[in-house]
């Protein structure tokens, strides 16, 4: 029987479920004219959820429902940032949604359910919770991608996403079943991650366990979008409505990190010497494919999609270091990437207007002439993504590189840095287009400055600079979460 204590531990999650259901009802019974109110209500819902997460933070890790759910610092930090970036997505999405007549309950409810999935996923203490959270997130995301169902690309992207996602979920589930089986050979079968930790020491079927691990890594790789499981990323990024892309590039990546951490460290920590190399290979493949293919893209969303793949390579660099240092670096990277991704897509959202999608890199030509401030914000995002100091992205890269060197993988750090040089080109190219090219007719500009968007986006992009100048507290926070 769940006790009151269990429910209190899950208070933010229960609250979000209730709020999302309430939003659905509101949407159904509201007059069409009042619908825009939903926007502000949803943002308020998320802000209250952040408050509940932060204020209710237990002094040390606690579990609920017999270990199904873990509430520790790692989960709290990831949740706070996932909620925060989603609230930012809401702010940035408003003009886009209004102009495309998509502003309605579906978007907000689905987004909140997706965030709920993230919250479950990063708090998972059991294979079942991992799967539940993952599916909640994925199913909401599939639907979100197809939100603009009258256009050509979104349904196509959603089908691709769904088919490949289902395949990956199947792989993950298959792997989990093998791990479960292996845990039963020579002991009591268990799905609990904490108990799975030492299966390797007693199981009579270590090969089965390793097989299970490989399949689980496929699932993780898919969720992260690491090469060679990256095929869906460019199409989905391009096809999805930009606000949804923004969400997939930010909150979803935090979730992927959380899932990888839960499964690999809590569950399969004993096998770290085995998965370390697998992750390193994924990292190298992602860095290579992401950075090289991004160079030839002309569509900004596709370019950022490949850039995501390469960034996941860096995140894997930290994860493959397989230690608290590495995890802290990887989490720092995930947070950093979420902030950068939201900022970069946010500028694109700010540029869209009725009948005009700011999608091609060429749309940004001469942006510095039309909207110097927007160009400057994009410049910050691009230099941060490229990893040029003093911006935030640079320090995140330094941290994962340090973690790799610390784990005696100097070669991996060198591969990472070489691809950073290659990746530099396409970010600089965007800056070049904005600053050095002459503006063209029909290019991007901020047509109707939406004040909240402008303010939040400015704060978002400036935070890349501010955190670049003073990243100590955030790092300390990440390290403390992993007991450093």
């Amino acid at each position: 029987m769940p006790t009151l204590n269990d429910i209190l531990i899950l208070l933010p999650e229960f609250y979000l479920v209730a709020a999302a259901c309430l939003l659905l009802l509101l949407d159904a019974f509201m007059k069409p004219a009042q619908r825009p109110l939903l926007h502000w209500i949803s943002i308020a819902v998320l802000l209250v959820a952040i408050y509940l997460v932060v204020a209710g933070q237990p002094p040390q890790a606690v579990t609920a429902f017999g270990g199904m759910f873990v509430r520790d610092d790692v989960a709290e930090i990831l949740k706070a940032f996932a909620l925060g970036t989603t609230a930012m997505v809401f702010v940035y999405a408003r003009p886009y949604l209004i102009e495309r007549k998509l502003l309605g309950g579906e978007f907000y409810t689905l987004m909140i359910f997706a965030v709920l999935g993230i919250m479950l996923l990063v708090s998972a203490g059991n294979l079942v919770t991992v799967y539940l959270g993952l599916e909640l997130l994925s199913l909401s995301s599939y639907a979100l991608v197809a939100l603009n169902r009258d256009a050509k690309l979104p349904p196509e992207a959603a089908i691709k996403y769904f088919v490949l996602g289902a395949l990956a979920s199947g792989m993950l589930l298959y792997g989990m079943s093998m791990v479960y089986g292996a845990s039963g050979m020579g002991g009591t079968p268990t799905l609990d991650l904490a108990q799975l930790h030492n299966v390797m020491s007693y199981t009579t079927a270590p090969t089965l366990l390793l097989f299970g691990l490989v399949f689980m890594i496929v699932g993780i790789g898919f969720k992260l979008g690491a090469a060679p499981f990256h095929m869906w990323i460019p199409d989905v990024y391009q096809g999805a409505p930009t606000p949804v892309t923004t969400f997939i590039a930010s909150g979803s990546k935090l979730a992927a990190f959380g899932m990888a951490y839960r499964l690999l460290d809590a569950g399969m920590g004993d096998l770290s010497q085995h998965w370390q190399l697998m992750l390193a290979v994924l990292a190298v493949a992602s860095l290579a494919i992401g950075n090289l293919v991004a160079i030839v893209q002309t569509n900004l969303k596709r370019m950022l999609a490949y850039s995501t793949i390469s960034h996941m390579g860096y995140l894997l660099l930290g994860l493959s270091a397989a230690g608290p240092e590495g995890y802290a670096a990887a989490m720092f990277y995930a947070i950093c990437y979420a902030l950068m991704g939201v900022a970069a897509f946010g500028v694109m959202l700010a540029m869209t207007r009725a009948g005009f999608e700011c999608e091609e890199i060429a749309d940004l030509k001469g942006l510095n002439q039309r909207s110097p401030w927007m160009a400057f914000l994009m410049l910050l995002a691009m230099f941060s993504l490229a990893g040029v100091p003093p911006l935030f992205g640079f320090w995140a890269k330094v941290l994962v590189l340090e973690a790799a060197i610390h784990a005696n993988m100097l070669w991996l750090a060198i591969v990472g840095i070489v691809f950073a040089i290659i990746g530099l080109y396409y970010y600089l190219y965007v800056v070049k287009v904005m600053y050095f090219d002459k503006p063209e007719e029909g290019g991007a500009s901020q047509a109707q400055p939406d004040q909240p968007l402008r303010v939040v986006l400015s704060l978002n992009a400036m935070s890349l600079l501010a955190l670049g100048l003073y990243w100590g507290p955030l790092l300390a926070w990440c390290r403390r979460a992993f007991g450093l």
Partner: protein
Amino acid sequence: MFNHLLSLLIWLPVAGAIPVLLAGSARPNLARWLSLLVAVLTFVVSLFLLGQYDPSGAAMQLVESHLWIASWGVHYGLAVDGISVALIVMTTFVGILVVAGAWEVIQDKPHQYMAAMLILEGLLIGVFCATDALLFYALFEAILIPMFILIGIWGGPRRVYATLKFFIYTFFGSVFMLIALLYLYQKAHTFDLATLAALPLTFKEQAWIFFAFLIAFAIKVPMVPVHTWLPDAHVEAPTGGSVVLAAVMLKVGTYGMLRFILPIVPDAGAHFAWLVIVLSLIAIVYIGYVALVQEDMKKLVAYSSVAHMGFVTLGIFIAFMLVREQGHTDMALLGMQGAMVQMISHGFVSGAMFTCIGVMYDRTHTRLIKDYGGVINVMPWFGFFYVLFAMANCGLPGTSGFVGEFMVILSSFSASPWIALFAAFTLIIGAGYTLWLVKRVLWGEITNPHVAEMKEINARETFVLGAFAAAVLALGIWPQPLVHLMDGSVAQLVQQLAIHKI
């Protein structure tokens, strides 16, 4: 206030860029005056720094240290020695002239131009006084952003190619340095340069770290064979960009060698000194010949910069040879001092040369030597300055160009007469390309109609060129204060060379 003098120097121009940007394109004159005000204030503060600095002590002075990133033990650590002070004062001095030099020349978004210049100035000052390796690295890389923008927006026709090449080339070099620094951090658990200097390292480690550092700094200096970004960047950069690039930014490379290679990997440095010496001699002789055949004035001066910076690297690494192999500490000291004087002198001379080319370019919009001829007939005052700087560029005694080169040649003679022989080639080649340039541009009859329409330099240009001329002559006639300023610090560096760390 006194404890934060260095911070003030860094942040004053950076913060000063904000009101300049806010002035906007609608009020270009306000932006210009504001940036001039900031540049002058920064110069005044740097003079104050000069007064505060006590040249008799060898230790780092005006130390500022705050814990920046607690969990990594990274400090916001600033301090200066004589070399830093000299470079900082040169930077702020050039900063004023660059702002003044761009006054009416930059008509397109002057506020952004000026702001980028000021930010660049602040970052460069930061590089010259950082005592924490990570802080140094961050500033070292951050410099690229404003420079990228400067060349890309206000540059010449091939600016995009040049600026991308510049950015990626220099970024390429420095990332290996980052790996080396992270490796050192694993061993020492700090980025503090003084601690790293005391860290024992095996020869193999030193060799790898040496090459990682060398790539980073050699590209910045630039040394042969990684100098190819420089002619492109110089040719396409706006005048002010070229001036800062040549006068200050190249010095970051040699300064980095002094701060990183010399103290942290002295044994590898001594072992591979021959390599750097050979590359320096190639720069001096071969690049001198390359300069000779250039048809573009800016390219010619750019190549001559590579050749002159060859003297700086020669002076630094000849010291290894002298100290480690022959025990000539006093000669090593001379060579090192020569290198330092050459750094400062080259800053003024190359800055002045690029300003001169800019002055001509503003009138005719061409940089090709063949488009000129007989300029002295229409611009006698300009001709006066141009000849003066040309003389300094080929190292005429009495100008600053002579002092450093002479000291370096003298000390390399005691290391090996052969090295001195090749180094001394510069006296002939340098004179060759510079005087030939002067001959083709200034002297002779006016053959091109647009030269006849060139107007004499105005008061603003006279001020800029005059200031450069004063600096060049002052250093040439009386280099003693500069040498004295850097004396203790150079002696300290030479001492560090001798310490075996294995």
